[in-house]
């Protein structure tokens, strides 16, 4: 890898790390609280009864994810006319697919997939 290739991967990583460090440092300015009771209930808009978080139909997210996968492949196909090597297509495909998989997995675990 050349210095330029290293920066293509290293630049975004540097921003993520720097951002996370600053975010954690800034977090020391204010206090954080969590617990049980009225203060920690989601905003209801003045209504007395609020349904607890239940399972949801993940169809919408599955469609959105499939949409993104199709989009990624279409873009790679469209971009293939300028391809000089397999490195970047593979890098983007791997990175993109990993993020999509993690997000979908998380949505299903937290929300509870309803068949």
């Amino acid at each position: 890898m050349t210095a330029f290739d290293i920066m293509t991967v290293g630049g975004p990583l540097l921003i993520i790390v720097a951002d996370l460090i600053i975010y954690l440092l800034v977090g020391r300015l204010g206090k954080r609280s969590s617990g049980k009771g009225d203060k920690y209930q989601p905003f209801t808009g003045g209504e007395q009864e609020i349904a607890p978080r239940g399972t949801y139909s993940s169809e919408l997210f599955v469609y959105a994810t499939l949409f993104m996968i199709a989009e990624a492949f279409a873009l790679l196909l469209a971009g293939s006319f300028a391809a000089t090597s397999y490195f970047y297509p593979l890098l983007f495909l791997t990175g993109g697919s990993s993020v999509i998989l993690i997000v979908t997995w998380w949505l299903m675990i937290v929300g509870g997939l309803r068949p």
Partner: protein
Amino acid sequence: MIATQLLEILFFPGLTFFVWIGFIFDWLDRKTQARMQSRRGPILAGPFGILQPVADFFKLTSKEEIIPEIADKFVFLLGPSLFFSAPAIGTIFIPVLGAQAIVSNDYDLLFVLFILGFSALMATMLGYAAGGRWAIISIGRLVVQYTGYEVPLIVALVTPALLAHSLSISGIVAAQQNIWFIVLAPLSFCVFIVAALAELEKPPFDIPSAKTEIVGGWMTEFSGRPLAYIKLTKELGYAFLSALAVSLFLGGPLGPVLFADPALQSILYFIYFIVKLFAVGFLIFTIKTALARVRIDQAARLFWMVITPLSLIQLGFVMVLRW
């Protein structure tokens, strides 16, 4: 060499520079909106109130962070940082001092497109992590809106790539040395601005965070530092999308060459870039202030029935032009 690049990425013309542009954009947005509504806007913090967005940011960070009982705490607390990273990463691919960006490769436009998609997905995650009825309603709207504007946005961004025969943002900027792509693809520029408004959740597409309908949408449960970061991300997104429009359609920082000295010419390129950036930003502020919110079904219909065909017509025109 690498140390210099790292400093450029973190400070100038990278992240810190764009964050400040984002703050100034927020101030200009509020001033423009106030003027159009016969108000004065921010006036207290700094000269003409220009430091108001910075004051708001620090005020929010020092407030209490309340974590709702039903929230997914890990994503709720750390998600805003990742949400901020998306446009922050995009800024390093934008050429500011010449045709070459700090970081560039043959496929960086694809990377930027992925970042734009990831931003919407991250907002969905944050809303769902927070829980609450308003957030759940909001992310449904967000996903519908996202699937509507994503296709025309991509087509609008691929058009300059086709004209330049390059998927590198720096390559596209370099190809506009003689003629800006807004002249050859004006419809794509218009489509991009409309899609950018939807991406930024600004009127008339502020449907997922409509204050009068669903409180704060997916941001309802956020407070303190996470909310400050979400707002900062939106300001940075403003600056990033305007800079992307400048790079892809208005020749980026390129303009008449007046100096033989590269350092002086870089300063001139920087001035060209800033002027174009604020022109695009002002266009977005004016449109968003002048228009009222549409319903989600109207937005979906608009994107699928009008904006997408328009972007495809422009793409077809460009393909014929290239052929």
